[in-house]
C-alpha cells in the first residue's frame, strides 16, 4: 500500500513537468529525424540545401563539411536548436487543437528561415533563386517537422489535462 501511495505521489509530482519535458524530447527527436531526412533529400539531389549548408558551410567551406561528418554535426546541432522551437511552441501555441495550426506553423517557420533569416546564411541563395524542387521539398519537410512538433505538443498537453481530471475526481 505504502509503495503504491509513494508511486502515486511521485506521479503527481511529475505530472505538471511531464508535458513540458515531453515537449523537449519531442523537439530533440523531431529535429534529429527531420533534419536527417533533409540530409537524405540533399543526398538524392531533391534539394540543393541540407542541414550542413545552413549551419556549417555558411561559414566553413572545408572539405569535411561537405561530407557525412558535416551533415552529422549539423543534424545534431539542429536537434538542439529544435528544443528551443519546441519550447516556443509549448509556450505560445500548445492550446491550438488539431493538426492545421501545426502545419501553418511549419510553413511560417520555413518563411522565417528562408526569407527573414536568409541574410545570416551567406551560403543560401535568396528564396526566389532556389529551384522549385528545392522549395517544394524544403516546404514539405518544414510542414512535416511543424506537424511533428506542434501536433505532438498540443496532443500531449490536452492528454495530460484529460488524464488528470478523472483522477482528481476519483480521489476527492
Amino acid at each position, binding site marked *: 500500500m505504502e509503495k503504491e501511495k509513494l*508511486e502515486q505521489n511521485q506521479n503527481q509530482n511529475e505530472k505538471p513537468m511531464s508535458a513540458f519535458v*515531453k515537449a523537449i*524530447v*519531442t523537439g530533440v*527527436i*523531431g529535429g534529429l529525424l527531420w533534419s536527417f531526412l533533409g540530409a537524405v*533529400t540533399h*543526398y*538524392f*539531389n*531533391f534539394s540543393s540545401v541540407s542541414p550542413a549548408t545552413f549551419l556549417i558551410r555558411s561559414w566553413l567551406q572545408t572539405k569535411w563539411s561537405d561530407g557525412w561528418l558535416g551533415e552529422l554535426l549539423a543534424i545534431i546541432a539542429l536537434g538542439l536548436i529544435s528544443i528551443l522551437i519546441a519550447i516556443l511552441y509549448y509556450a505560445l501555441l500548445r492550446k491550438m487543437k488539431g*493538426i492545421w495550426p501545426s*502545419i501553418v506553423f511549419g510553413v511560417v517557420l520555413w518563411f522565417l528561415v528562408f526569407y527573414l533569416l536568409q541574410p545570416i546564411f551567406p551560403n543560401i541563395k535568396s528564396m526566389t533563386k532556389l529551384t*522549385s*524542387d528545392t522549395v*517544394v*521539398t524544403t516546404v*514539405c519537410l518544414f*510542414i*512535416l517537422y511543424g*506537424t*511533428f512538433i506542434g*501536433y*505532438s505538443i498540443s*496532443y*500531449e498537453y490536452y*492528454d495530460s489535462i*484529460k*488524464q488528470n481530471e478523472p483522477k482528481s475526481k476519483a480521489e476527492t
Partner: protein
Amino acid sequence: MGQLKEKVPVPNKVKEVQEYMKKRVGVGTSFDVGFREITIFKKKVHLYYLTGLCDTSVIVQIIKKLVSINDQERNTSKLPEVIENRLVHQQVDKVKNMDEVVDQLLSGLIVVFIDGDSEAYIIDVRKYPGRAPEEPDTEKVVRGSRDGFTENIIENTALTRRRIRDERLRNEILKVGERSKTDICISYIQDIADDGLIKVIKKELENIEIDGIAMADKTVEEFLVKQRFNPFPMVRYTERPDIAATHLFEGHVLIMVDTSPSMIITPTTYFHHVQHAQEYRQSPMIGSFVRWIRFIGILASVFLLPMWLLFVMEPTLLPSGLEFIGPNEQGNIPIFVQILLADIGVEFLRMAAIHTPTALSTAMGLIAAVLIGQIAIDVGLFSPEVILYVSISAIGSFATPSYELSMANKISRMLLVLITAMFGVEGLTVGFTLYILGLSHTKSLNTPFLWPFIPFNLNALVQILFRLSVPAMKDRPSIVHPRNNYRQP
C-alpha cells in the same frame, strides 16, 4: 416495426398458442420449425423446437422424463410445478410474453407450453453447427498456441476467458439487427479499459439500425468507424485468442460478433497493424530483428517504386556511386505504365491464388512467375528492372502482417507512382507529405492513427521499434487511456 414491439402475453390455451405460432413463425409452413404434442394427465403439453439448432439427444431425455410423469406421479393438481421440476436441464427460464418466446425459439432453444398455464418454459438445448478451434490461416506462428477463434461467439468468449480468469473481465452481450438479431459481445477488463471508450462503442452499437448483419464484423466496423474514402484499416482484427487476451490486458476493448471468427480490437493505430504474434514468441533480439526487416518491407512496399521511377525519369538525381540504377535501354512503353501494368499483374495473381483450389494453384504460380515474367521481358513489354522492383514491393506488401494495411498501402503506392510520373520530384515529396499528413489527420474512435509517431510518444515508439522483453514493459500503452497504468502489480 414499432407495432411488433407491443408485448403479447403467453395465452392460456395451447390451441391459441398453436394458432399464434402458425401465423407468426410459420409452424407447418417452414419445415425447420416443428412442434410436438404430448399429453400428461389429460392436459396437453406443447413443445416447440427448431430442427437445425438443437441437440436432439437432450430433447429426447426431456420428453422421456415428461412422459414418465404419467406413470410415476399421483398429484395432478399441481401439474405445472411438477412439469417444471421434471425439465431436467440446468438452463430453464420462465417467460410470460410471446416475443421472447419467438426470439428464443429461433435461436435454437425449445419452448414448452402447458395447457392452462400462462407461462412458457424455455430450455437451452442449443447446439450450433460449427468447427473446432484451429489455427487461423492469416496469423500463423512457428511456436505458440494453435488456438483460433471460431464462428461461435460462446466458444470465443470461452477462449478468452481461459486466458483471463480475472473476475473483472466483462463480456457484455447485446443484439443488433432488426431481423438477424445477431449477438455482439463487448469484452473488456473493467478496471483497466477506458470508460469513455466503452460508452462510445456501446452507443454506436446500439444506434445501428439495420435488418441484418450477415457480413458480421465488417458491417459492425463500418457503423463504428465512419471510414468513407479512407482506405486504411481503422480497426485491427485478430483470430488469435492470445492476441485478443494481450490486448485486453493492455486496456483495449474487444468486439466479438457472432458468426465471425475475427475479433475487432479497438482503439487501433497504424502500428498495431505492423506487429505480429510471432515476435513475442521469440527472444527480444530476434523479435526486434524480425520487426525491423518487416518495417523495411512495408516501407519498400510503399516508397520503393515511386523512388525508383523518379530516378528513371531524372537520372541526374542519383548520387555518385548509384548511377547503375535505371534501365539500360529505353523500353517500348513508358516506365510508369510498365510499373502500373506489372502491379496490376501481381494483383491478378493474388486474386487468382485466393480463388483457385490448391491443386491448381501450383500450376498457376508456375505459369505466372516463370512464363509471364521472362516472356514479358523477351517480348519487350517490360524491362527487367521493372519486374525486380515490382516484385520487391509486392513481397514487401505480403510481409505486412495486416492484409487490410497491405491493400491500403498498395493503393497509396499506385497513387504515389502516378503523382511522381506527373510531377517528378515535387510530386513525390508532396505525395509523401500528404501520405504522412493524411495518416496523422485520421482518427479512429478519437485515437490519432499515427500515434506514437505523430503525435510523438517516446516510450511507446521505442516499444514499437524494439520488441522489448515483457518484464521491461511496465506501463500499459497510454493511447488506450488505461485506468490503471501498471502491468506488474
